[in-house]
């Protein structure tokens, strides 16, 4: 292949941020303007403009998909999937990952300044949906000069965005890779999120959301994270990692310190989370996930098949046998709807001890499947 000179401009690269005039019409009926989007890109858009891959992040993820996180100093959250010689490779792909609407890593969210008042939005930020996140991403693609994506890829809430993309922009992607996800939030999913939200709102520092400039509701947010973190792991994984082992002691203390290793681990997860995440963003994004239901215009599989009826994208769904947050049955329901819609679909349930978090962890089969699926989409345009 003749290599065309790569298109480089200051819109492309790591640690970018753009303020788009908007307005962005939201599902709630509200208008958001301006729309700020923080994002990273890796690799170069080719001359044909057909090698762009949008990576969508999960609830507490961010745009640092394959670069060192500026606050934690840790490697990008999906370094196993994105990077040189990985399935999503900057040598082949123009890779885009944007902080979702409502989040707190630079994109418009409750901690942003409301131009109308000059103060933080806090709870005056409009309630957003997964569809709104996707529409904001589409605005970013317009800004970047990307027309049709080679693929949109994501796990968990990133998978919800990946699935919402072809229902909102049926012709704008060749391939959809959705991992450990669902086409709607179940009652159990909503219930866990409500526990987290109530923990935040019960923290006196939350103050109706107007805590910016003061003490944030760290205790509430930490509890929310602890509860959620349990849902990301498997029972067997927790047992293997911690069992009933005690933390730094030989005997039970007959008190309420973190006697058990699993308690200590969860407390650490909660405490380290509050340093990098905004409690109001946690409220807004969990709400967006709870509202998510691609089959909303018609019950069950028929509605879901109709949602996918207009796209010609090819799909790949992956679930994990120990993921009880978004269990295999959810992916299977999506595949049944895709089959009913006549869409080209692949689906596999992979074995992993890691529960829902398997999509982020060492799961070699996932990388093989993703690589094969993406390459097949590139060879047959």
């Amino acid at each position, binding site marked *: 292949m003749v290599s065309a000179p790569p298109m480089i401009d200051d819109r492309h690269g790591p640690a970018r941020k753009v303020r788009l005039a908007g307005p962005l019409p939201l599902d709630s009926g509200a208008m958001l303007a301006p729309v700020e989007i923080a994002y990273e890109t890796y690799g170069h858009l080719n001359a044909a403009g057909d090698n762009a891959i949008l990576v969508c992040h999960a609830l507490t993820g961010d745009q640092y998909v394959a670069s060192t996180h500026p606050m934690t100093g840790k490697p990008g959250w999906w370094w196993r999937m994105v990077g040189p010689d990985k399935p999503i490779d900057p040598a082949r792909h123009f890779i885009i990952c944007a902080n979702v609407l409502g989040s707190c890593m630079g994109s418009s969210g409750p901690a942003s300044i409301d131009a109308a008042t000059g103060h933080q939005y806090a709870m005056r930020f409009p309630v957003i949906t997964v569809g709104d996140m996707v529409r904001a991403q589409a605005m970013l693609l317009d800004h970047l000069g990307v027309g049709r994506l080679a693929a949109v890829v994501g796990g968990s809430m990133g998978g919800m965005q990946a699935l919402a993309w072809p229902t909102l922009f049926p012709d704008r992607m060749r391939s959809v890779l959705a991992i450990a996800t669902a086409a709607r939030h179940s009652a159990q999913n909503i219930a866990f999120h409500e526990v987290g939200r109530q923990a935040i709102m019960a923290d006196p520092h939350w103050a109706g959301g107007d805590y910016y400039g003061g003490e944030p509701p760290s205790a509430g947010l930490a509890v929310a994270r602890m509860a959620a973190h349990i849902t990301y792991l498997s029972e067997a994984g927790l047992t293997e990692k911690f069992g009933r082992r005690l933390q730094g002691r030989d005997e039970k203390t007959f008190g309420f310190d973190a006697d058990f290793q699993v308690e200590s681990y969860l407390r650490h997860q909660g405490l380290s989370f509050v340093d990098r995440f905004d409690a109001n963003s946690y409220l807004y994004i969990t709400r967006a996930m709870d509202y998510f239901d691609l089959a909303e215009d018609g019950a069950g*599989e028929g509605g879901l098949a109709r949602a996918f009826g207009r796209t010609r994208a*090819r799909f*790949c769904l992956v679930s994990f046998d120990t993921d009880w947050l978004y269990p295999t049955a959810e992916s*299977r329901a999506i*595949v*049944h709807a895709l*089959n*009913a819609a*006549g869409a*080209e*679909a*692949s*689906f*596999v*349930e*992979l*074995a992993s001890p890691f529960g829902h978090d398997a999509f982020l962890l060492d799961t070699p*089969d996932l990388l*093989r*499947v993703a*690589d*094969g*699926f993406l*390459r*097949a989409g590139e*060879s047959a345009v």
Partner: protein
Amino acid sequence: MTRPLQSRPALRPDLALMARMVTPGTRLLDVGCGDGALMAVLRDEKQVDARGLELDAANVAAAVARGLSVVQGDADIDLGHYPAASFDYAVLSQTLQTTRRPDQVVDELLRIGRQAFVSFPNFAHWRGRLSLLWGGRMPVTRLLPESWYVTPNIHHVTIDDFRALVRERGWSIDGQWFLSGDKETTHAGANFFAEHAVFLLRR
């Protein structure tokens, strides 16, 4: 890009036979597609739009990793979600005898595909008959290599059994081929001499 014929490992004989018969550029659903060997050949050499359904996760992962569209699922359960007449062909190779309700699975194949290829090991092959007749034991042969207690083949079927089912359901036979020692063998006495049968059916 079409790869040269020599570069791929030889297809299993029943699959090679089907691959020869399939019209180029058609749509095909391979039920129980394994690692996608037939689908890959049809895609690369006949520009067939091939989709697969396979029970085993490792096989599905291998097939998707080679760029094929394969869904992990169960022929007994998941075929109902495919729309009628959505494929030119539905293929069931060496899977019939492993399904809970082979008759219903073939019926589904003929609903989803205009035509259906069905291949299965012939339980009435003379070696199996000898094993039962003289040894008094369930046959363990090259094509039926597992003992009765581990075999996934829960509905053993002979060529004459299958023909009777086809007659009873009023399906039509568009083609039938018989294999012995990986080579095509005569129709005469197929129920005795053929290790393997391939049928092409339509409703």
